[in-house]
């Protein structure tokens, strides 16, 4: 999933201070799972903003909505009938959702209510960590299912580097060395011989370095 974290309330308040009619829009998918922008967080933010502005003697109209997704036309369309009633929308979706909303409703100011962080997993309640950087050419098959692009600080394809100590990465004693994990798992799989194979230079043009990316499926397009 895409992992995001809530923006500090002070920052959100600053962003909407000059408006009167605010819509807070949550998303039912990734940001709900990482408890940053689902229906619950929409309710909490709305309540907090109402109280803040009430305390300032300002009567704001603050409404709440949570869409199934904000990265698909069909769900964003649900706002078409109501969007003109608001001066500003705070979207609690990931950056993709915020942008799609802004593209669709060109004349409405859309503000991000979360900081989008990475593609990752829920390690345990309240802990999320990165697993994929969407490099466009997955090599997990060669690295025992552990991604050196997202989990190795240097993105080394033939690691580890000299900074790997007792299984930890030199940038942080708490952080597992991705290459240690790869070697350990290759060992478990009985495939340690694979470690001897040099992974060739990666074609980074499929990654962000190649500019903004698109996936086009002619077999699906109508």
């Amino acid at each position: 999933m895409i992992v995001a974290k809530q923006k500090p309330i002070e920052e959100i308040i600053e962003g909407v201070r000059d408006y009167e009619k605010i819509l807070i829009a949550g998303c039912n998918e990734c940001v709900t799972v990482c408890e940053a922008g689902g229906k619950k967080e929409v309710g909490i933010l709305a309540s907090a903003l109402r109280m803040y502005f009430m305390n300032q003697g300002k009567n704001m109209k603050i409404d709440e909505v949570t869409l199934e997704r904000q990265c698909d036309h069909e769900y964003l369309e649900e706002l078409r009938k109501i969007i003109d009633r608001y001066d500003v929308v705070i979207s609690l979706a990931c950056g993709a959702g915020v942008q799609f909303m802004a593209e669709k409703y060109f004349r409405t100011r859309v503000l991000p209510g979360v900081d989008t962080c990475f593609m990752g997993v829920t390690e345990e309640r309240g802990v999320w960590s990165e697993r994929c950087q969407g490099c466009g050419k997955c090599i997990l098959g060669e690295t025992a299912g552990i991604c050196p692009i997202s989990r190795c600080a240097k993105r080394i394809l033939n690691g580890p580097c000299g900074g790997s100590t007792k299984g930890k990465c030199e940038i942080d004693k708490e952080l597992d060395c991705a290459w240690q994990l790869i070697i350990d798992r290759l060992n478990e799989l009985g495939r340690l011989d694979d470690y001897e194979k040099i992974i060739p230079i990666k074609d980074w043009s499929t990654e962000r370095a190649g500019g903004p990316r698109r996936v086009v499926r002619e077999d699906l397009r109508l």
Partner: protein
Amino acid sequence: MRIQYPENIKIIGVPCTGKVDVLHLLRAFEKGADGVYVVGCLEGDCRFNSGNLRARKRVEQAQHILESIGVGGERVQMYNLSSGEGPRFAEIAVEMTEKIRKMGPNPIKISKEKNGCMI
């Protein structure tokens, strides 16, 4: 056992404090409560394992939010006690009432009255 506690306290029963959500706490303040406290079982004694631990986290989240918006984080508290501690329940009620009295009324309530805002 008949134990007296301050009559200003309104008790809302929940099956487990794990049911209490941040939003419940915030809504109470939005509606004008001067203070809210959650009374859960002793830590380690939750029948559902972590209900009271979750409640504590939510109280902390609500404290943080209330502090950030100028209402005062201290207005919401978490207490743990066993069902056999009736006198302690009354003590907490008094302690909380005094604490909130010192802080004064909920500023939202005052502002609402002054501005005639409706929620």
